């Protein structure tokens, strides 16, 4: 019998939800932070055959030396099968070796486009932005070229915006059919968005974001309340299973015991 955890943070729920979306035996590009934690959790639970790929080039690693603090640090090389230069991960992705890109984002729109560059008007304020974020890194490349992408992020109204300040990582553009292909992209685009509030997908036709499941304690209405644009709702919307005792134990004790990426304190979202 599955035992659900008695207490867990929204971030822990997020990681568990992310982990459960990952199919076994797939090649998965691990973005920095929560995606690394989610992949490791999946490897330790239902998907031991996952092949993680890190941005700086490590393929097939097992993070037995502890969670890397950077996708380029030496811990990503632990038990790796293959490790070439930085461009290697992008070249593998461009070729089609990566089944799933698992990435984060700062701002998202209804079509799964992401901003991780700036707040302010582009291009007018680009050289003097209101808030400057770190920039694309490799996420923009992965969003284009992985066969599918899964996005993991915190759910706040300002992060779910009808229009982005800047389009860093492309999802479904304006939702027009074939927009990705017309732009020259190869991957299928975002399959899932996982947040502290809900599991979402995209409507086949309109490519707009759609609630598939609500996180425990949330409702369609409470999710919509925290979202800066109208969400579609799947006909079979359901409540997501809470994290299990096993999942929470692995996150807290094995994968991220110091809470680098998954904060230990219980805080309300």
């Amino acid at each position, binding site marked *: 019998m599955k035992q659900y955890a008695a207490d867990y943070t929204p971030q822990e729920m997020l990681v568990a939800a992310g982990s459960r979306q990952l199919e076994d035996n797939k090649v998965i590009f691990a973005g920095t932070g929560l995606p690394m934690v989610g992949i490791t959790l999946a490897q330790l639970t239902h998907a031991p055959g996952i092949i993680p790929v890190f941005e700086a080039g490590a393929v097939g690693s097992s993070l037995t030396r502890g969670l890397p*603090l950077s996708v*380029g640090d030496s811990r*990503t090389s632990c038990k790796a099968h293959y490790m070439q230069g930085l*461009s290697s991960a992008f070249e593998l992705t461009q070729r089609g070796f990566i089944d799933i890109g698992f990435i984060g984002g700062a701002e998202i729109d209804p079509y799964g486009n992401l901003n991780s560059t700036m707040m302010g008007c582009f291009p007018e304020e680009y050289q003097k932005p209101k808030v400057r974020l770190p*920039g694309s890194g*490799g996420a923009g490349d992965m969003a284009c070229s992985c066969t599918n992408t899964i996005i993991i992020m915190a759910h706040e109204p300002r992060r779910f915006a009808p229009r982005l300040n800047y389009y860093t990582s*492309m999802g479904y553009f304006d939702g027009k059919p074939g927009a990705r292909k017309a732009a020259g992209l190869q991957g299928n685009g975002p399959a899932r968005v996982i947040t502290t509030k809900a599991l979402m997908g995209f409507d086949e036709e309109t490519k707009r974001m759609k609630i598939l499941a609500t996180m425990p304690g949330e409702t369609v209405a409470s999710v919509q309340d925290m979202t800066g644009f109208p969400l579609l709702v799947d006909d079979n919307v359901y409540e997501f299973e809470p994290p299990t005792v096993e999942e929470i134990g692995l996150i807290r004790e094995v994968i991220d015991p*110091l809470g680098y990426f998954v904060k230990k304190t219980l805080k309300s979202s």
Partner: protein
Amino acid sequence: MFWSGLSPDDAREFLANKDKSKRDKRMTLTEAVKTFVKDGDTLGIGGFVNSRQPVAIIHEIIRQGGCNLTLNFHSAGLAPELLAGAMALNPSHVSIKRMEFAYFAHEFAGISSMFRYLAEKGLTELEDWSNYNMSARFKAGSIGLPFMPVRSPLGSDVMAGNRSKTMDCPFTGRPIGLVPAAHPNVGLIHVQEADIYGNCRINGQTFTCPEIAMASAHTIITCEKLVDHEIITANPTQTSIPFFAVDAVVEIPFGAFPGMCHDHYYFGQTHIADFKMKTEAFRQGDARGLEDYYHKYIFDVTDFDGFISQIPYQELKYSRQAEGRSLDLQKFLEVY
């Protein structure tokens, strides 16, 4: 077309006329920076985020001063942030005119406050690319091509806002991006091992360091350890950078600290957190801590040994132990 650093034709011409002989290239870092780094130069920064960043070289550039610099890198934290901090403190001594880059932050340690400071005040020109774009730009430069084709991030504001071009592929008819070569004036690279001629071995991930070294007009190498030439020739497939792409070789142990260096040391997390706190304080109006940092570690010492010798031995020891094996981090942080 605007080229920072050298244009492809100029870069080729410069290299064709350069002395590529195999000779002893050891010198002090003071001498290397004095000889090769000039005001107005474009600098190619090696490493990835805070791994194998050329921290020692950056310290020396800050010590000597350098104005109107253009920085080229994919993902970096400490190296450009140290330059940005120096500029914020005294723009007549160090100034960054322009940055061409993909990601500027500390990853686990958060955003780069000095980058935010410069960017949000509009004090430096920005040109965003993706990591793959910047890798491809250095790659093109390193192999003598004027551009590389790329499939990402097509359709984004990244490619709309930079000097890349999009064309229809003449073979498939589908859109393809073209990113122009990058040829920095000087490549700044820290490696684990080099011989006196400049043949370099990089352990672990090479990132884009070989490409940066081979694309640049001049390259300064710092290494953890100088090794015998015979070690290089015993296994030439492990040489990441060939000697004829290198102009100066300087042995600087801990040359990437407080960043990490594969097989040598893990992150100096305490030091990075302290630096990060001081930069954030500066951004919020309190310059004192950051001024002290620069004086203590850079301006009041003559070389990088002067910085490293101020790092508590326990911290250096820990960073060596934490590299390559699992330590009980929690316990360390409690007892330290």
